[in-house]
């Protein structure tokens, strides 16, 4: 009788593994292909605008002069929105995860998730018809009393449809996603670390500072970057809320002359645009694409550096 030892070498892989790794790889490649496809499309369609003589571009002074104010408008509204939203969102997340009694925290979490479900056009209408008008007295007060701060130089807009209003509406829009994601990471803080702090005699806030925030920091950064990405690309709400006049670069957040954002500029002009005007708008889209990409890249880099353990 001969016994055969089963071969321990060789790499016969199980079918399940094969299917899984195959489909994972395929999805990864698909994502790259789609990204590259979008990038190439934008580049090809924008090409006429990239090479056109300066006086044929909208505004008559070349692509850069045209793009610069709307890029500025995009960044300033999104960044202000993020600065306003992140602290509030993190506060809400901490309250839900570590302060509120269980019943209340569930209800609150639910409300926050509902905020995320409101369509952006609704935010736009609300911002334009209700919120902007409600803010006018505040803007007038700001212009009169703290007008020496360049941000509030005034004269205050009488419609309230300013950069700050747009930023506030964007802040409300990105609040739920930042808050929901932050809440999830805060809830996952290892009990071990929380108890380490408590056993040293930490109050609840000190425990949060010692255990919860360090643990959740990279998650909060990712959440904020997702929010920033959404704010950069948000179209409908900004289009409705912001009273935009092209080529105004200003840090006056409550005035009448406001730069539009890239997304709003495209939405406003796309329907009638043809030929070179269309290419110009697509070039603007390309800039937004690159910007969003860069933001996500930076976020990724920040998060991995955090995880590297250097404090």
């Amino acid at each position: 009788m001969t016994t055969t030892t089963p071969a321990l070498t060789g790499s016969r892989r199980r079918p399940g593994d094969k299917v899984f790794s195959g489909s994972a790889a395929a999805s990864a490649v698909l994502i790259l292909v789609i990204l590259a496809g979008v990038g190439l499309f934008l580049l090809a369609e924008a090409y006429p605008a990239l090479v056109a003589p300066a006086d044929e571009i909208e505004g008559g002074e070349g692509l850069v002069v045209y793009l610069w104010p709307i890029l500025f408008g995009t960044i300033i509204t999104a960044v202000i929105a993020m600065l306003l939203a992140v602290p509030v969102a993190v506060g809400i997340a901490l309250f839900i995860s570590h302060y509120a009694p269980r019943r209340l925290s569930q209800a609150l979490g639910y409300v926050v998730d509902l905020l995320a479900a409101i369509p952006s056009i609704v935010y736009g209408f609300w911002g334009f018809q209700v919120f902007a008008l409600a803010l006018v007295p505040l803007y007038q007060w700001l212009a009169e009393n703290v007008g020496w701060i360049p941000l509030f130089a005034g004269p205050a807009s009488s419609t309230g449809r300013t950069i700050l209003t747009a930023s506030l509406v964007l802040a409300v829009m990105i609040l739920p996603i930042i808050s929901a994601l932050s809440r999830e990471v805060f809830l996952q803080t290892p009990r071990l670390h929380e108890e380490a702090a408590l056993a040293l005699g930490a109050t609840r806030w000190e425990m949060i500072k010692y255990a919860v925030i360090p643990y959740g920091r990279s998650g909060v950064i990712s959440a904020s970057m997702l929010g920033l990405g959404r704010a950069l690309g948000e179209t409908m709400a900004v289009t409705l809320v912001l009273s935009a006049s092209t080529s105004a670069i200003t840090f006056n957040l409550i005035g009448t002359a406001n730069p539009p954002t890239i997304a709003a500029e495209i939405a406003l002009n796309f329907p009638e645009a043809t030929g070179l005007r269309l290419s110009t708008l697509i070039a603007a889209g390309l800039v937004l694409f690159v910007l969003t990409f860069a933001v996500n890249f930076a976020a990724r880099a920040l998060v991995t550096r955090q995880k590297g353990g250097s404090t």
Partner: protein
Amino acid sequence: MSRQIDVSDLDIYYGSFLAVEKVTMEIKPRSITALIGPSGCGKSTFLRSLNRMHEVIPGARVEGKVVLDGQDLYGPGVDPVAVRRSVGMVFQNPNPFPTMSIYDNVLAGMRLNNKRLKRSEADAVVEHSLRGANLWKEVQDRLDRPGAGLSGGQQQRLCIARAIAVQPQVLLMDEPCSALDPISTLAIEDLMGELKKEYTIVIVTHNMQQASRVSDRTGFFNIEGTGKPGKLVEMDATDTIFSNPSVKATEDYVSGRFG
């Protein structure tokens, strides 16, 4: 700074579930008290009630008295945060703050007490505590590295250093060696021998050799069945518990004839 603890008629609950019933116990200063017993009999629960860590679990509460140096820890107006600052605790799994450096880990408790420390004072506390935890020689040249980079045994000693840095009156240890290798375990047992000169130490262990090696007095907890509360069956000098206990269940347990 070491103090006596007197526990009387302590009932410990998780919600409506009575986990530990009617414990009366005297814990002597400058000594090591070991708590042994089968798992699930409430040793950790009891230990955590000694520094009011029990109540951080929602619904958890106690009835009865724990008197530290004349003061009832569960008396009206007693702040659990203050209790935890004077009764330190070391957990089963080493839990240094992962993003903090070794240096900052040791000082974590100090900083909570809101003491403004001069750099030289802070340095002195760090060195003294790390020496106290027998860790100084191993980490003195990498104090700025994160605590999570140490081995398990080193991390546990770092946690001990962190606990003794605030000079607590009592040190509670819940199976501090069960996640460690034998060499680290010996290092920590030696350390406990040193620490008892200054601190009142209570240690939970499932390792009976360890209890007999390190402790002066031993308490045996037992449970009659699942869902029943754990009870303190017998408490005596460690030698007596291991050689000549007065209760049959204790003898069965320490001689390994349990079940």
